[in-house]
């Protein structure tokens, strides 16, 4: 049980700064997912918490104890790696017991804790096997078991599900959720997969290029993305973003391409600014007298279809989500309206959200 405090944490390799000051406070027992595209520094941040990377500047505190100069072994954390990192020459039992053995835990205590963790992860019958005799999913469980038996203050997960096939990934995701509900250990989970982030997180940290873009619950992040980056990163397909300005009446949005979008409600406060208008594909509603769009391409997934459309001749592309199978052809015209409460406004230069 522990809190994690990151205070203006920075990381540089030689002269090159890769993490530009991260400030996050994680509450006791929270499940936090750090999500971002590859190379955004999310793994580096996690490894700094683990103690595998040095912190260049700033402070990381676990349970109010600054751990910058403390060895990973003494931080009371456990980590699950993407490649599992099991010791290939040890049995499953020994893999799980190794950390306890080093700490001098009595033998019967080790046996009890490993058995307990093995039962929790349904590994009981595999304890004598070697890692190479296990399937990917089983190895993943052993890696989790190794973390569990230590009963640490913090669990760190470094993209633990990315090496599993789609079906197992869903299953393990559910199991991780169940485990967290049961143990309520503070957890930090790194992934590039937004589905994992949305489903697992109590709060998520969206990172991009070494900066935190937004910290919030999955709902907050989805419903009120703080920046254009978050808007385009979370959600599949991503939010439609159109650059342009408002005309003097505050009702007509003039795109940079010259096409215009009529708004349902005037926004006089935004007139004269360089703007980005955002709307999610699922929020565009069919209407007879709405925005006229030309169909470019339809992706039918069965339960839903994504209609790729274009505004005008060379205007912005907009993706529309429609329920069921859409029977539309290239070049057909469709009409959609933009509900007033579904519009997101961002400043075009800073990319930051503009709230009403």
């Amino acid at each position, binding site marked *: 049980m522990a809190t994690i405090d990151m205070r203006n944490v920075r990381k540089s390799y030689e002269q090159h700064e890769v993490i530009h000051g991260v400030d996050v406070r994680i509450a006791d027992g929270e499940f936090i997912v750090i999500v971002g595209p590859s190379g955004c520094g999310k793994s580096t941040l996690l490894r700094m918490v683990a103690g*595998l990377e040095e912190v260049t500047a700033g402070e990381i505190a676990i349970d109010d104890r600054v751990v910058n100069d403390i060895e*990973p072994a003494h931080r009371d954390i*456990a980590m699950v*790696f993407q*490649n599992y990192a099991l010791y*290939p020459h040890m049995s499953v039992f020994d893999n799980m017991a*190794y*950390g306890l053995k080093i*700490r001098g835990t009595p033998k019967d205590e080790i046996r009890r804790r490993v058995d307990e963790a093995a039962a929790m992860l349904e590994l009981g019958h595999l304890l004598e096997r070697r890692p190479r005799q296990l399937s990917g999913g089983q190895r993943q469980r052993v890696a989790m078991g190794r973390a569990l038996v230590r009963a640490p203050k913090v669990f760190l997960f470094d993209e633990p599900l990315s090496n599993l096939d789609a079906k197992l990934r869903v299953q393990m995701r559910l199991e991780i959720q169940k485990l967290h509900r049961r143990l309520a250990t503070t957890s930090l989970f790194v992934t590039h997969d937004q589905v994992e982030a949305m489903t697992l997180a109590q709060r998520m940290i969206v990172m991009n290029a070494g900066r935190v873009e937004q910290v919030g619950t999955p709902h907050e992040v989805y419903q009120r993305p703080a920046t254009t980056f978050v808007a385009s990163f979370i959600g599949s397909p991503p939010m439609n973003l159109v650059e342009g300005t408002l005309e003097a009446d505050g009702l007509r949005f003039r795109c940079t391409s010259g096409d215009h979008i009529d708004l349902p409600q005037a926004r006089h406060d935004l007139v004269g600014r360089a703007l980005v208008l955002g709307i999610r594909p699922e929020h565009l509603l069919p209407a007879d007298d709405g925005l006229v769009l030309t169909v470019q391409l339809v992706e039918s997934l069965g339960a839903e279809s994504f209609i790729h459309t274009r505004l005008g001749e060379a205007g912005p592309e907009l993706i529309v989500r429609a329920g069921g199978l859409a029977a539309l052809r290239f070049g057909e015209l469709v009409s959609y309206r933009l509900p007033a409460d579904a519009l997101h406004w961002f400043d075009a230069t800073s990319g930051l959200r503009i709230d009403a």
Partner: protein
Amino acid sequence: MIERRPVANLVSHFLLVIGVLVMAFPIYYSFVASTRTVAEILTPPLPLWPGAHFVDNYVQAFTGSLHRIGGVNLGTLLFNTTVVALAIAVGKIIISLLSAYAVVFFRFPGRMLFFWMIFITLMLPVEVRIMPTYQVMVDLGLIDTYTGLTLPLMASATATFLFRQFFLTIPDELVEAARIDGAGPLRFFRDVLLPLSKTNIAALFVILFIYGWTQYLWPLLMTNSNDMNTILIALRKMVSFADADTQWHVVMVTTILALLPPVLVVVLMQRWFVKGLVESEK
């Protein structure tokens, strides 16, 4: 090779058998000679079947005293050679393991300098550095000691390099997992690295044991006393230019016994490291 024709089969088997005979016959003949008396060996034609003096000759070799090698018996020679070969093999493996471990897993000033220093010694075999090494050994008073016989042969760039290449294939995450589990550097070395290097160690041991066993030039320089001779040196000393002065039957016994340990090591260890290869744990 893909075709299966009886004639081709016959020819290839014939050639193989000839090859085996060419390889094995000298060894067989040594064995035959080691069971006969000097007179029988020196009288043509060469006898092709083992004689009746097997026990006599071998007992004589172990207990008797040949004046040409200073009355040292075969037991002492075998013991010396075993000590030298084992010390070189084990010493080389330990030193190479540790230096490769340092070079691969630790960041310290001059790391690459040390690596290159080790690497450059590859270009300096024993024969090249024999004079200065000999001088150093004399100055240290190590002539006629096991230390003197083995120490200069222990540093090995080849083995260091081999272990370095192997260590580089160990994923960083494994090292990190061990760090989080709380394994210190020595613990990691003992619990993770050593077990994973088992097969490499076995293979190297075989090569290095034979390397140590067959050393000739260095032991020749380092030993003045007959008590410290290795079996190869003694073997050379036993043979005189004059047949009458050479105890050929004892020479042959010595030859056979000099052959045995390396063969045993290869046969026994080969099984072990083939098993290791089959059960590859990576």
